[in-house]
């Protein structure tokens, strides 16, 4: 049984994990860089170890320092959170070699799903629709053949890519060859791997993902869907569950497909199968994320299941206590990611000191954040400073609750994306649930703060 967990992360997710550990009576170790000396995860963990300088490559991403911190504190498990080392197969392997339980899937599964072409093949073999396209394409002629067979527009993607990096949309065959070479060069530069593949490009798709929970003993559950279509530069900003686009029939078909995919990959732990859904309602596998995700609280709200608790339970070798029929979905949840960015200046990062801070509250309101008054947001890391998640009986109530919670959320001294979210919540298209991943291209932010 796991007795002491080292959290190889920072910010809100480190706190989120510490909270569940405390509830389970598990000891916690926080690791931090010198830039995070005053951060809350350090304060709320039972022990803390400074593992390196501000540069995350020498601290949060530096495997020997993290293993060493586990060694000196006697931690018997590591929770990687999301980002940093969460989907690093080598790290998972090194943990196991050092007799430290990695809370997540094995190196083999992480590597398999991290290789986009391999992941597509596994899902396709399992009978899950994949986006029409190719395997790795080495030359533009071969690529063009694929492009013609699936039809323009197409997108060229790096196999090692993700999060919007290493992608190029091509509208017609005239642009194809040049775009192909550019994509290869970019992939080589960004990921040290020039491999690219071609996919059909959809004009107004939705990004809908299914939360999976598997115990490695043949039991796989899905915990519903999340619509994450509201994005900016492929970064999710607002997530909700259930998706306003899916009916119960589609929801079941996609949930079953995700379970089938997870079983085909011999998946263990919590994971997410991401689908692209076109305007006709056809869905295609995009990728599988082998970590806890930023937006997991919306699924927790509608199912009442603590995903971190389940992750630890499975890591302990535990069998899932629930069956699919036990998972009851109730109401509607929305999450707004509050970033330290200025939405009126093209979302430029806004690090610095939080002069004053007030969190919203009330029934069905949850704030996952590492902020406090006078906290200084360091400029070295992600700009996510808070997640505001609300639950309502239905979508309308959830939106209304989100609006009033955003109005109550006071963060002074820095710029935040709160005004952006306030405006989205009252926008007609969003209120009707009528949006795609290109929502922001049509959305005009009014350059004034909504009255608070």
């Amino acid at each position, binding site marked *: 049984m796991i007795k002491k967990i080292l959290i190889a992360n920072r910010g809100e997710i480190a706190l989120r994990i510490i909270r569940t550990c405390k509830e389970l009576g598990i000891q916690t170790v926080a690791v931090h860089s*010198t830039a995070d000396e005053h951060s809350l995860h350090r304060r709320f963990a039972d022990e803390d*170890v*400074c*593992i*390196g*300088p501000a540069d995350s490559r020498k*601290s949060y991403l530096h495997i*020997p*320092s993290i*293993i*060493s*911190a586990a*060694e*000196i*504190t006697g931690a018997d498990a590591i929770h990687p959170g999301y980002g940093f080392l969460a989907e690093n197969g080598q790290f998972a392997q090194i943990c196991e070699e*050092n007799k430290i339980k990695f809370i997540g899937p094995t190196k083999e599964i992480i590597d398999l799903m991290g290789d986009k072409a391999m992941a597509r093949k596994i899902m396709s073999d399992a009978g899950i629709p994949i986006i029409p396209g190719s395997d790795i394409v080495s030359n533009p002629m071969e690529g063009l053949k694929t492009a013609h067979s699936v039809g323009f527009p197409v997108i060229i993607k790096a196999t090692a890519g993700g999060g919007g990096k290493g992608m190029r949309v091509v509208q017609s065959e005239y642009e194809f060859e040049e775009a192909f070479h550019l994509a290869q060069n970019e992939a080589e530069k960004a990921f040290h791997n020039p491999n690219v593949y071609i996919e059909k490009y959809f004009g107004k798709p939705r990004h809908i993902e299914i939360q999976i929970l598997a115990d490695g003993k043949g039991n796989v559950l899905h915990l519903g869907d999340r619509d994450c279509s509201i994005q900016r530069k492929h970064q999710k900003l607002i997530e909700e569950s259930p998706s306003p686009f899916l009916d119960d029939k589609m929801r079941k078909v996609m949930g079953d497909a995700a379970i089938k995919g997870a079983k085909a990959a011999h998946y263990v732990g919590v994971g997410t199968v991401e689908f692209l859904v076109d305007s006709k309602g056809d869905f295609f596998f995009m990728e599988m994320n082998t970590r806890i995700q930023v937006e997991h609280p919306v699924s927790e709200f509608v199912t009442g299941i603590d995903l971190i608790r389940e992750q630890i339970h499975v890591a302990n070798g535990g069998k899932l206590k629930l069956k699919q029929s036990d998972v009851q979905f109730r109401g509607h949840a929305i999450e707004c990611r509050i970033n330290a960015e200025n939405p009126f200046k093209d979302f430029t990062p806004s690090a610095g000191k939080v002069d004053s801070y007030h969190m919203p509250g009330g029934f069905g309101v949850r704030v996952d954040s590492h902020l406090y008054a006078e906290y200084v947001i360091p400029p070295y890391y992600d700009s996510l400073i808070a997640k505001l998640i609300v639950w309502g009986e239905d979508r309308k109530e959830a939106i209304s609750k989100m609006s009033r919670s955003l109005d109550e959320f006071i963060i002074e001294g820095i710029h935040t994306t709160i005004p952006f979210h306030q405006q989205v919540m009252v926008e007609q298209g969003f209120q009707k649930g009528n949006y795609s991943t290109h929502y922001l291209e049509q959305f005009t932010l009014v350059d004034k703060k909504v009255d608070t």
Partner: protein
Amino acid sequence: MDSKLIESILEALDRTETRYFKVENSKKKIEIVRNLSSESQRQDSQLPLGTQDAIMPDGQSDTSDHHDITSPYVGFFRRSESKEATKPLVKLREVVDEGKIIAYIQSMNLQYEVKSDIHGKILEVLVEDGQAVEYDQPLFRLKALSDDS
């Protein structure tokens, strides 16, 4: 003040966990307070009167030329070449050149070197052999020496 005597007392103390040492006769009084805690922030540790002489046999009480060498990694602090070796790489009072290896940090069966980044004299060893240390934790306190000294 007999600095030779004090040096030998300090060296003897360095092999023990003694935190407080006092000896006096009609002519002199030597009082030594050693901070052996693993707390990394030691700058504010208040030393009682009379200690300065003991810690600095040169009779200087100015701390502006004091310099801490901090840990470059997380791991276990080793004062000697290996776990088995007992001879420390550097002794208290020893004058070290810039770049000299003065300790190791052991982590995952790897040894990382701790080098002196100045030319100076070792005034204090702030952590014990085998103790777990964090990144940036002060390990040694040195007195900076000018190059010709």
